[in-house]
């Protein structure tokens, strides 16, 4: 496993292949907890490190990944009018998911290695999470070459140009998705892209996502949704068309639980995203002209539709692009939730507001933190004077 001494020394400082040292280093730190000793400062260090933290996020994504895989297959067979068993659904899903992940990690990983070699730095494990996230926010029918472009854009422009993991202002996975949204809107918006279909689509199958159906409901919005098969529980469990990982709120909540218990994800952000969404939904409900308006959609429906839950749990909580202060996190989360529901209800031309709301708040996170810091300084001055 460990490169033998002679070979390894060629990569070390002064060796022939010194330039490629980050590769050896990445392999070593990936496979081993190395006996590197503390020097200066604290003599002991917590067993926890960034790599562990990233892995916890990936583990928290597993339920969504597994359910998403199943759902891709399920929707495929449902659209063709074939009744398939669970194993068939899972296998069909795998034929879609595996290529997506292979492309994402191959392209993203290549960029990471490339930048690490240029900088002569260690390879960061940050791409683990970005790479695990990207396929989950894609429609299942996304062409692989478009995915490759999106991953490149997300990693290079979203992260590496800012200096790598820890320096980026936007969430790289969302940058990838935003790139697709603006560059290839046909692949990632509209009503027809959220199910992988075969040659034949039966009439009984609803291609559109609940969010699309909500734009112009015929009659009472909730009745309209359930008439198309989207009652609350179906959307909660997730057997519906949509981005691969976002449909099942149950799977997402399991992930949320893992993130919160381990302390990896900020409960402050998660809770306040839902709070912000709920408050704006309640205000909209109060002003809804008729029960047939999307303004009349209750808050708990917003939570289970589209990428709301997935964004709140896995995207908004990215510690690098979120607000860094504890009180700032409440504001940051609240505004994400509020903006999302606002976009959904007041600008139905684009029914999903989550991605843009998070990117927008990524941009404002430093300003929120700045305000919190200024208030802290003022409080400290007052306290010292008094």
């Amino acid at each position: 496993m460990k490169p033998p001494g002679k070979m390894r020394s060629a990569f070390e400082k002064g060796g022939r292949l010194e330039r490629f040292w980050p590769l050896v280093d990445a392999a070593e730190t990936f496979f081993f907890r190395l006996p590197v000793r503390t020097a200066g400062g604290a003599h002991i260090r917590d067993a926890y490190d960034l790599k562990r933290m990233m892995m916890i996020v990936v583990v928290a994504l597993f339920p969504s990944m597994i359910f998403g895989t199943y759902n891709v297959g399920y929707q495929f067979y449902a659209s063709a009018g074939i009744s398939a068993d669970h194993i068939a659904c899972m296998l069909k899903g795998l034929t879609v998911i595996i290529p997506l992940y292979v492309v994402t990690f191959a392209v993203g990983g290549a960029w990471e290695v490339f930048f690490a070699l240029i900088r002569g730095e260690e390879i960061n494990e940050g791409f683990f999470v970005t790479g695990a996230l990207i396929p989950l926010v894609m429609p299942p029918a996304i062409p692989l070459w478009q995915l490759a472009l999106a991953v490149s854009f997300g990693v290079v422009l979203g992260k590496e140009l800012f200096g790598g993991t820890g320096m980026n202002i936007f969430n790289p996975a969302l940058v990838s998705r935003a790139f697709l949204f603006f560059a290839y809107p046909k692949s990632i918006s509209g009503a027809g892209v959220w199910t992988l279909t075969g040659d034949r689509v039966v009439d009984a199958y609803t291609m559109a996502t609940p969010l699309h159906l909500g734009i112009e409901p015929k009659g009472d919005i909730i009745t309209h949704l359930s008439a198309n098969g989207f009652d609350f529980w179906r959307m909660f469990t997730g057997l519906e068309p949509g981005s691969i990982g976002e449909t099942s709120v149950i799977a997402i909540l399991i992930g949320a639980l893992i993130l919160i218990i381990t302390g990896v994800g900020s409960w402050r952000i998660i809770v306040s995203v839902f709070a912000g969404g709920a408050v704006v939904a309640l205000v909209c409900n109060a002003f809804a002209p008729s029960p047939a308006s999307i303004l009349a959609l209750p808050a708990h429906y917003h939570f289970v539709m589209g990428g709301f839950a997935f964004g709140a749990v896995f995207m908004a909580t990215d510690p690098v692009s979120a607000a860094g202060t504890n009180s700032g996190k409440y504001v940051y989360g609240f505004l994400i939730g509020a903006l999302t529901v606002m976009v959904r209800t007041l600008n139905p031309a684009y029914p999903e507001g989550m991605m843009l709301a998070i990117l927008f708040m990524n941009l404002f996170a430093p300003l929120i933190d700045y305000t919190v810091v200024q208030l802290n300084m003022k409080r400290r001055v007052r306290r010292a004077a008094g």
Partner: protein
Amino acid sequence: MANYRLKKGYDIRIAGEAEKFIERAPLPESVGLYPADFYGMTPKPLVEGGERVKVGTPLWRDKRRESLVVTSPVSGTVAEVRRGERRVLGAVVIRTDGKQHVATTAAPPPKRVSSSARGDIIGALCAAGLFPLVRQRPFGTIADPQATPRDIFVTAMDTAPLAPDQGLIIKNHQREFQRGIDVLAVLTPGKVHLCADGGPGGDSLFDGVKNVEHHRFAGPHPAGNVGVHIHHVSPIRGAGDIVWHCTVQGVILIGRFFIAGAPSFEVTAAVAGPAAARRRYVEVLAGAEISSFAGASDAFPSARFISGNVLTGRNAGADGFLGFGDNLVTIIPETKKSVFLGWLSPGFSLESFSGSFVSRLMPRRRFAIDTNRNGSVRAFVATGIYERLLPMDILPLFLLKSILAGDIEEMEKLGILDVTPEDFALCEYACPSKTDIQRILRDGIDLVLKEARERE
């Protein structure tokens, strides 16, 4: 009496607490003092190799405040005056002669301790080399004998990992402690604040101490840090707002000097840590060779000897010396083995503040933590961990960033005057990016201190 209950912080579950009995250590063959233990002093050596010294003979003095000297804790011969980079004084090592002759001093402690004798008291403490037991905030330097402190804080608790029991340190020295308090009370126009452990393990020996204002602090580490006490009782108001502080051991040594009339540097120290043999308390001289009273257990052929605690102590080496002002030697195993896919392990035997290891479910278990850094150095990530470990109204991440940016004004506004590196040691322990946080803080304090001294 005021009670403070702090929630933030963490007690690292490290194994190897010292057993609660005191033994007398033999007189060491050699004693060493490191100028690095006296932050804020610029040492100018007063002795050379081969010179004979007695207890209380000055070894070096401060360049800025000439009355401030560090004296020998033993009588014997100077074996070595170690120099470091750019000939900076690194250590003075003295070979003991076993006689413990005391140097005659021109400034004996005054018989009556009253505010009219303040100048004489400071003069006597300085001449005996006991004044460096008093430290100063802001910046955590050795106290300036020319300053008048607003208040003096006495820290009668220590929450650091495997910290010595302060009750055991004071147990046989209560009279000396009270006398030391009375001496300190004269040095300030303000109050002497005695901050003791208000938790279930707190010691009632401090309840009867007079001439002080009592405070009780309860909570996990760093609830016992003097910086936390000052921050909560009466915070530093600016670079010129001077507060002195002293440990229980320091107060005892000062009191003893005023009772006996001659300086003595005998302290009570704990020997602790997962790799330590014979964990116990010893009565030993400040600066004593660590090998004269502590050793590693045979099960750990490679061990690190730390003077002080695992978070802030100095790596002394097996042939090193007990630091001036230290009451603890911690011995921990050096890390050796690579662990295959170590970062994936469920972590039954790994200590962590985070909730990401199974060990979280075993709050009473103690771990033989070794010196592994447990990860590679990465960029800062705002994980929110520091905020949970610093029980002060300070935004740790932003203070650190202002230091990295070298912005002195910002640093002061964000609270650098309230802290020293030890207050951030726990953040350093738990930092998933393995940042050297204490180093950053030291750099920041160095910078602000330099500017403050230039303004003088």
